[in-house]
């Protein structure tokens, strides 16, 4: 085709279209990442930062019990939240695709609006739900299920997982729903015509075909939930303490940016290995899916 043959004119056009965003993201995304990496090899001296190469920060991160524990805690919390979000989203996506067609656009709109509105206030609302004088305790007391309000609902790992799940369900839902939308209904129909029952259709057709969406949703939720520092700061307590809070503190009150950067990079590497593990798992599952 004429259009795609490289000429100086299309080259100029291409440069005009791609150069601005490429430059912008290089300057304000790639280079800042590199600067952060530099900081992780520098050293805090009093209230200033000494620009001398050192591996001390990484050694501190890898040998301090607390940092390893909070990183593991972050992973446990992130995985739990991602799993819960997927478990909640899957029937929702299934229902919107096959059962509630009439209300599909309204419900999609509701889910969409919840993503872009009031992040902080929603976290705070969970305090009013889980607190000593919160919604759940009031309901339990009213129903006579407990005599005393439960105090273990807030300021722990459980509270963090529930709140993160709530915040990121839409992030799990959207890719799953997108997979359901791309699901060719003829295939389902064909399986039925060939005598497959509803459970067989689900296990052998619907589930394998929507699994990529499930994995994508799981990964988004996992990445965002694991790295959220607001929820753990507001309602984490001790058992819900995450590495993201520790990193935020290094850039705030502790004023130890080099240590904070080193923590961040160890955390990124941990996340990346988690991500690669999930990618590997999905490849493996896809092969299994094709073979079954």
């Amino acid at each position, binding site marked *: 085709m004429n259009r795609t043959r490289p000429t100086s004119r299309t080259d100029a056009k291409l440069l005009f279209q*791609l150069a*601005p*965003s490429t430059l912008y*993201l290089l300057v304000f995304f790639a280079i800042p*990442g590199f600067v952060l990496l530099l900081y992780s090899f520098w050293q805090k001296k009093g209230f200033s930062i000494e620009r001398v190469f050192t591996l001390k920060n990484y050694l501190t991160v890898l040998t301090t019990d607390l940092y390893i524990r909070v990183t593991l805690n972050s992973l446990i919390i992130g995985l739990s939240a991602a799993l819960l979000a997927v478990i909640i989203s899957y*029937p929702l996506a299934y229902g919107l695709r096959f059962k509630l067609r009439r209300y599909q656009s309204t419900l999609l709109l509701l889910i969409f609006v919840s993503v872009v509105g009031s992040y902080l*206030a929603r976290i705070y609302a969970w305090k009013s739900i889980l607190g000593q004088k919160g919604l759940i305790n009031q309901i339990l007391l009213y129903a006579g299920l407990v005599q005393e309000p439960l105090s273990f609902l807030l300021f722990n790992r459980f509270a963090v997982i529930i709140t993160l799940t709530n915040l990121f369900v839409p992030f799990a839902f959207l890719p799953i729903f997108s997979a359901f939308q791309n699901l060719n209904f003829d295939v389902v129909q064909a399986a039925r015509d060939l005598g497959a029952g509803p459970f067989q259709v689900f296990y052998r057709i619907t589930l394998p075909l929507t699994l990529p969406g499930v994995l994508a949703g799981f990964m988004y939720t996992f990445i965002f939930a694991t790295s959220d520092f607001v929820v753990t700061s*507001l309602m984490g307590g001790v058992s819900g303490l995450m590495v993201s809070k520790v990193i935020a503190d290094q850039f705030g009150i502790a004023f130890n940016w080099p240590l904070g950067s080193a923590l961040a990079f160890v955390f990124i590497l941990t996340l990346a290995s988690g991500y690669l593990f999930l990618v590997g798992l999905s490849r493996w599952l896809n092969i299994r899916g094709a073979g079954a």
Partner: protein
Amino acid sequence: MMTFPSKRKASISGNLKRLLSGLPLIEALCILAILFIYLPILVLITFSFNDASIGIFPLQGFTLKWYLALVTDTRFLETTRNSLYVAAVTTVVSCVLGIAAAFGIAYHKFRLKKILARFYISPFFLPGQLLGIALLSFFAFLQIRLSLFTVMLSHIVISIPFFYLILSARLQGIDRSIEEAARDLGANNFQAFWRITLPMIRPSIVGSAIIVFATSMDNFIVSFFTIGADSTLPILIWSMLRRGVSPSVNAVSTILLVVTFTAAVAVNRFVDVKLQLV
């Protein structure tokens, strides 16, 4: 559809299966999921009208005083203006950059295309906190004073991928031969774009712009690290929450939710925005 009645169908598991498929189980799960998503939102809306200064149950009675308190609060008005300013500039700049990039990638073939396409969406997958501290170190390294301007620069980084993603998906779906036909009929490049291509991608642009605007208004995490002494609405809300003054926060959030919801409904009604994610 053919079914063969057999003895196996009458077994207990068969009955159980029929019972389960008869129950509106999926529908019930859907309603529960939506309720779960909206539970904190319903709670915060309720508390915004509740006549008590702390967010605990039981409720104390109806009041509008938290809303009235906002109107007279100069800090609230000022930070709202700041947030609107940041969100508006962010939306316009990232719209132009993101859409141009989407056209460049979709309409041309060249080496490094795949790598560049991945580069454009990568900020989308970087957690906000990590981007925040990276930009903080970057600005400190260059000794750039933190302000609303640095917040804006940071918000644009997360918004370019959004426009790029949505527009790339849209451009894949449009038939380029229509544009070509317009050229064959004598339209110049600008006319072909303005009268043919743009109307086809306009719903995606409007939809993305609303989402980017709303996310920028609501962004706390990136702003938190890059704002310095200035303040946006979420930063003000954060400081209010730490001092335990919650009802006004609920009122602010309720207003923002209503505005976002109205905008989303309007877009849904007047232009056909299809959900095109990934």
